[in-house]
């Protein structure tokens, strides 16, 4: 069964029908958002049942769209959180990635600006490395990007998608060693991106590029499959520990490509999570590592591959 990522957007009235339907079909609701009278469900559903969900959702005012980034957590890295970089570009790009289903975290570096003085500290490096990929939002000058990229990528182990003012070809030419993705012509600007040509078009390219990079990552993982799929582990964890019900976070359990971020304190809950029974006779600690996150005092779950555990849930 191949699961495809979709976004269901519809009225709040009787939306539980759709949640039950997705559950019955063997899919997962990764994130549920209620906005006044509207509900947005980021879900992974069986490919052959997308039409069925669309048909059943129609009388409820529901719309089903493809959302290639559902089930991913992306770091949007900005050189700082000053007025020079925010809100334009950074927020526009983060928002566009969210529309495609991703959970984005904006990371404003403490000293990412300038040319010679740009650097990345250890905490920032570790926080970025907890994500599925990092989108770097750099400025308009080739000389600067070429110079500072070395410092900003030091120690980063997740795929990087580099964006900046020069066009994509120039970005490729000046980045050595190469990074995983490039989107040119979106550097620092002083207004909101509204025009289709030259602005929104580039954001579409960004979503395509990020999906392509993450698909390559998924393919790599598929060669040695995970012991349990992250959305499934999320469902089990939430059912047994009621994390979503007791939390005010927008995504109390964030699904990543090969893990989860659980937004409860590590010191209090780590041992309980480790001992949790995922399947008959399989404890969570058998299939995943439970680690403290560098982001607040959250918990990071890294799911181990089949080759290490010999277990498939």
């Amino acid at each position, binding site marked *: 069964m191949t699961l495809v990522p979709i976004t269901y957007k519809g009225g709040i009235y009787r939306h539980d029908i759709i949640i039950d339907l997705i559950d019955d079909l063997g899919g997962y609701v990764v994130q549920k958002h209620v906005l006044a009278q509207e509900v947005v469900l980021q879900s992974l559903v069986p490919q052959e049942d997308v039409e069925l969900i669309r048909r059943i959702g129609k009388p409820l005012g529901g719309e089903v769209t493809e959302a290639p980034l559902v089930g991913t957590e992306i770091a949007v890295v900005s*050189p*700082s959180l*000053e*007025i*020079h*970089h925010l809100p334009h570009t950074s927020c526009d790009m983060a928002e566009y990635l969210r529309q495609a289903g991703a959970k984005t975290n904006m990371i404003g570096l403490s000293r990412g*600006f*300038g*040319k*010679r*003085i*740009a650097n990345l500290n250890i905490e920032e490096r570790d926080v970025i490395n907890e994500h599925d990929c990092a989108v770097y939002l750099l*400025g*308009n*000058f*080739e*000389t*600067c990007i070429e110079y500072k990229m070395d410092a900003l990528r030091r120690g980063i182990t997740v795929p990087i998608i580099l964006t900046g*003012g*020069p*066009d994509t070809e*120039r970005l490729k030419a000046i980045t050595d060693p190469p990074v995983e993705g490039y989107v040119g012509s979106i*550097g*620092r*600007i*002083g*207004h909101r991106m509204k025009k289709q040509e030259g602005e929104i078009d580039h954001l579409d390219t960004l979503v395509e590029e990020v999906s392509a990079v993450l698909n390559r990552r998924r393919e790599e993982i598929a060669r040695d499959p995970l012991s349990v799929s992250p959305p499934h582990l999320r469902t089990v964890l939430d059912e047994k520990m009621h994390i979503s019900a007791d939390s005010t976070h927008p995504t109390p359990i964030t699904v990543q490509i090969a893990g989860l971020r659980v937004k409860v304190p590590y010191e209090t809950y780590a041992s309980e999570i480790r001992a949790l029974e995922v399947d008959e006779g399989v404890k969570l600690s058998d299939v995943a590592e439970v680690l403290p996150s560098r982001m607040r005092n959250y918990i990071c779950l890294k799911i181990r591959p089949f080759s290490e555990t010999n277990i498939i849930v």
Partner: protein
Amino acid sequence: MRALEYFEVECPEEAGAKAYKEIASDILLDLNLVRTIGRLHIYIDPEFPFFLAVGRLRSLPGLVRVRDFANVLGEKGKITLDISTETYLAQLLSILWDSFGRDRVEQPDRFTIEIREDVDTKEIEDLVVYDPSEGIHKDLIYALQWIAPEGFKVRRQSMKDGHFYYVASENTLPEDVISDLVDSRMRLVEAEA
């Protein structure tokens, strides 16, 4: 930007120059400075790196006096001000309170102020309420700091006789190089004036 008489961004990287021209236009529009700045030349060298902006201000609108927005009627022991627009009312009240004391200045309604004092009406009419040149320096430097790439913390700025310059870099700025650069760019700004 059409409102500026002269506006150029000079940079060895063409794409960078284009981007910064757009950024500068957006920021000056946002901060309502387009009518204040007449001519502006920006020079960015990403190699050194430094940012330089030189320009000239337009002649600013004159001082705002009481007679510009109020009718002053004098009676024996009392002066009545009939306000037509409220824009400068807060500043006017502060000035009147400071000069005559709160107990002598009354505001029976939004558009009327009464001063219980024997003063010449002419004196009140000529009272300066607002000076538009105040705060221009602060606003202009803030705009240029915002336009300049972030992290350029070595700065030098000046505003004199309607001319201004702002230089910023992350490296030390040699005095002679800067003054040569400022002079040559200032000549460009003045050339077509």
